[in-house]
């Protein structure tokens, strides 16, 4: 994603797809595990864990970005950030962007929070999917039912993507929760016992070859896909990418000791994985707030600076915000956690209210020029 947004990897946007698949796999695995262990899902505890994991870094990034845009950004960057912030806070910014047709206007680079559409999709999945697993996942064949629902849902989602595909404006298919659900659902299906059992029957060596082929295929698709207007992307291409990612993840989980597993489990990918959330949150505001005319240079040197700044911000976010809240802050749990969440929301809303709306378009029309013959 970092390279794609810097203009170097035309298919890098598929990284979000991989992220969705991985998320569907992990979340469903946790939900099924809890169902199997306790016979039920503590929904409040699940949502609280998700909130503790995702909201602190999001709120810090959001408030800091608003303040930075106020201090250093152009009036239009600030205006859109102020417009989009409530939608981002409500985890519904993807639908806001669909209504705004940001894809049609090619306006992502005017919006500091345009990358948060995928976080919104995630949250909407987190709200709905546990209810499905809770209803269908119990009992002897619970995981079969969950797998079946996930596969049927994924196919329905693909059908919606094909139905809403519109070459003029791809925002609806690209950012719609329904049209992107297949990635999460294929990941979910990959976490169920029927799928895992089938992969466990694959001979070990064949499994390793399968992982290597799929990993290489995914990397090749990122390199070869020519942007979001690539032929067939929304007519099954992205679905195939998700399917390959889901099979790879499940196969790696079944046999993690092959070449692909060792490479993906090595120090650098693991380290990047641990920073990935903060990196995703911070990279886009960093990219937009440090354009070439601010830095004084562009091209590869600018990309290197942007990635370095994003990595630093992500590391700080993990060390100072994410990990403390996840592992050490007792005040972040239970009723006190809810109170802290409410207080944080009030502070963030206060910042949002306090920042004055910029005046757009001032001095853009020269009346004398209009009067020239």
């Amino acid at each position, binding site marked *: 994603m970092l390279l794609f947004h810097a203009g170097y990897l035309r298919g890098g946007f598929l990284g979000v797809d991989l992220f969705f698949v991985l998320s569907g796999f992990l979340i469903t695995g946790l939900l099924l595990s809890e169902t199997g262990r306790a016979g039920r899902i503590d929904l409040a505890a699940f949502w609280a864990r998700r909130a503790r994991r995702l909201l602190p870094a999001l709120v810090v990034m959001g408030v800091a970005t608003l303040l930075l845009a106020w201090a250093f950004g152009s009036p239009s960057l600030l205006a859109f950030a102020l417009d989009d912030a409530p939608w981002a806070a409500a985890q519904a910014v993807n639908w806001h962007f669909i209504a705004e047709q940001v894809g049609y206007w090619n306006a992502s680079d005017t919006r500091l929070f345009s990358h948060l559409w995928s976080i919104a999709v995630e949250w909407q999945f987190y709200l709905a999917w546990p209810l499905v697993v809770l209803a269908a996942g119990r009992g002897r064949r619970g995981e079969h039912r969950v797998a079946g629902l996930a596969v049927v849902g994924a196919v329905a989602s693909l059908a919606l993507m094909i139905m809403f595909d519109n*070459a003029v404006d791809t925002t609806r298919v690209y950012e719609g929760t329904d049209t992107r659900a297949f990635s999460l659902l294929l990941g979910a299906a990959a976490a169920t016992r029927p799928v895992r059992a089938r992969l466990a029957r694959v001979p070990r060596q064949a499994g390793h070859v399968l992982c290597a082929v799929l990993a290489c295929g995914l990397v090749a698709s990122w390199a070869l896909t020519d942007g979001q207007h690539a032929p067939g992307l929304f007519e099954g291409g992205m679905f195939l990418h998700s399917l390959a990612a889901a099979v790879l993840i499940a196969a790696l989980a079944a046999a993690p000791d092959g070449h692909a597993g060792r490479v993906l489990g090595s120090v650098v990918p693991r380290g990047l994985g641990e920073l990935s959330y903060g990196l995703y949150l911070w990279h886009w505001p960093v990219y937009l707030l440090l354009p070439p005319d601010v830095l004084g240079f562009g091209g590869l040197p600018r990309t290197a600076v942007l990635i370095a700044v994003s990595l630093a911000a992500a590391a700080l976010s993990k060390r100072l915000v994410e990990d403390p809240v996840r592992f050490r802050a007792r005040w972040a749990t239970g009723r006190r956690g809810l109170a802290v969440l409410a207080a944080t929301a009030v502070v963030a809303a206060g910042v949002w209210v306090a920042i004055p709306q910029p005046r*757009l378009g001032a001095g853009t*029309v020269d009346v004398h020029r209009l009067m020239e013959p």
Partner: protein
Amino acid sequence: MTAAVPLCDERMTAGPGGDFRWCAGAMQNETKPRRTLIRPRQRRPAAAVAALTMAAGAVLAGCGGSAGTGVRSEPAPSASAHAKDKKVLWLGDSIAGVEALPLGAALKASGVGFRNDSSDGGGTIVEGDKMSLPIARSTWKRLRKDLASYRPDVLAYQITTYDWGTPQQQRASYEKLAKAAGNAGADLVIVSAPPFKVDDFYKKHAADIESAPKAAAKVADADGAKVAFADASALWGTDAGAAKAQRSADGIHSCQQGSAAFAKWFTERLGKRYGFAPAPPDEWATGPWVSNQRYAKLGCK
């Protein structure tokens, strides 16, 4: 990208800047207007209709005349008093959408009613290839409703970047538009699209983009005084990359200054044709419309 070509030079009348081409009324008598421009309706005073008829007829007479036939470039003095009787329905794609903001301001400041019916990512009325056809169906559905509810005197259609189809399909669609306007009691004015960057998305439709204004001009030629074609290359030039085209960073739309320039140009032409005095730019060109977020989306200030 080739913008509209002057297809009716021998019948054109020059505006104050000598840069405007009306192609309507091609075969009309040089001294007598063949029709009233504003279709009389029950609710309109007969005197106003008569005044408008005289004023507009005088303009059209110039439009159909050759050199030395007495081109009239100013509206009749009495006509602007009746500008409030007139209404313009504006149709087109998102290029028309960014122009609609100052155009609406300019026309309203001139006492002319205005409704923006442009559509982002749509707006074409050309029932052409498999891409344009569904867009056109949606446009027609909305247009029929708006023609019936708004009852405009002028339906102004800016050729869209999606007017894709064969020249025959384009012409048939423009004729259909003229008929729809006529049935609703309105004139049709088709204005050519500004030059825009023909990127990968548009490249395969370059021939369609080039043929659309020619098809529109032919419809105006054939349909006498009811349909006019305005060649906007006089304002924008034909090179999307040139400063004269006033394109935004995307090479397709215009920012505030360019949109205001179009509003002034088009309002003057409408004023000349329909006999009202356009409001001077200082009355509308720096109004609240300049802060509309559409321009910020385009990277304008």
